[in-house]
């Protein structure tokens, strides 16, 4: 992480691409956890990267950039959600977006996809972010939870998912 940030600061576009590829899915999931639509999620992710570009020369702690990205995305998503009049994170109901194509539709009927759809929203977001976030600090930032609470909550949500998979 540190090396990628420092290389990007030196103008290395490949390092920047590697940063984007490592964190894009997490940032998308953060935006989605605020129930934003595609266009708003796209804006949140773009703004997050643009803000990083803007401060690339003044970053104090390159190792903390992952968590900074997540916090920034979370803040932008929260602001957008407020503007749209959405409820904050933690609401229990919300549909996932419709399938993007036939392959996705086929995948969706797979057991895990179906089970995820019936989980409480908080658990679904947590499992998604826990699976994607590069580290505990990023996950804690995405969920706005203390690091110590992550393990037990994740275990509870995994158990809920497992119960749905084995009726």
């Amino acid at each position, binding site marked *: 992480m540190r090396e990628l940030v420092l290389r990007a600061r030196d103008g290395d576009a490949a390092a920047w691409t590697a940063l984007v590829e490592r964190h894009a899915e997490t940032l998308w*999931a953060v935006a989605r956890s605020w129930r934003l639509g595609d266009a708003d999620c796209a804006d949140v992710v*773009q703004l997050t990267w643009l803000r*990083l570009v*803007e401060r690339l020369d003044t970053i104090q702690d390159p190792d903390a950039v992952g968590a900074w990205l997540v916090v920034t995305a979370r803040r*932008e998503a929260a602001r957008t959600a407020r503007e749209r009049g959405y409820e904050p994170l933690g609401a229990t109901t919300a549909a996932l977006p419709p399938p993007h194509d036939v392959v996705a539709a086929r995948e969706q009927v797979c057991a895990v*996809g179906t089970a995820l759809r019936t989980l409480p929203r908080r658990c679904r977001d947590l499992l998604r972010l826990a699976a994607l976030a590069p580290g505990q600090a990023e996950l804690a930032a995405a969920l706005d939870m203390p690091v110590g609470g992550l393990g037990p909550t994740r275990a509870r949500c995994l158990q809920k998912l497992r119960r749905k998979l084995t009726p």
Partner: protein
Amino acid sequence: MNDDELVAAVVRAFRAMDPVPGRVLDASRAAFGRRMVGAVVAGEVPAPEPVGMRGGEVRRVAFEAPGALVEMEVAGREVAGRLRPAVAVPVVVRRAGGDGERTRTDAGGRFAFPELARGPLSLVFELGAGTVVTSWIRV
């Protein structure tokens, strides 16, 4: 399935159900091209109180750099603002993918974009002493 396998299955399911769109990845990669080495970034500062002339849909934002203050009103996709100290200079809208709309400030430092495309943007002011760019906002 053990926990690791289950977590891997969760990732696969979300990738299939709600993948990051390719255009979002493209724009994120392209963001690196918006780096302006040498430009002075005007960071967001608290905007002055509204004077009550316009409706509640107007968002006020302000950006400050050493020797330059930019105040803006954003109403939907209309942006109007003022550069202080007042000077007539070119204003360019920066977008994630490159430069966009252009205009000039008038002698009073005022500028307006009646209908901008939606999405993140930043304004670039070509001042005599150098280039000032505002931090990013969204319309």
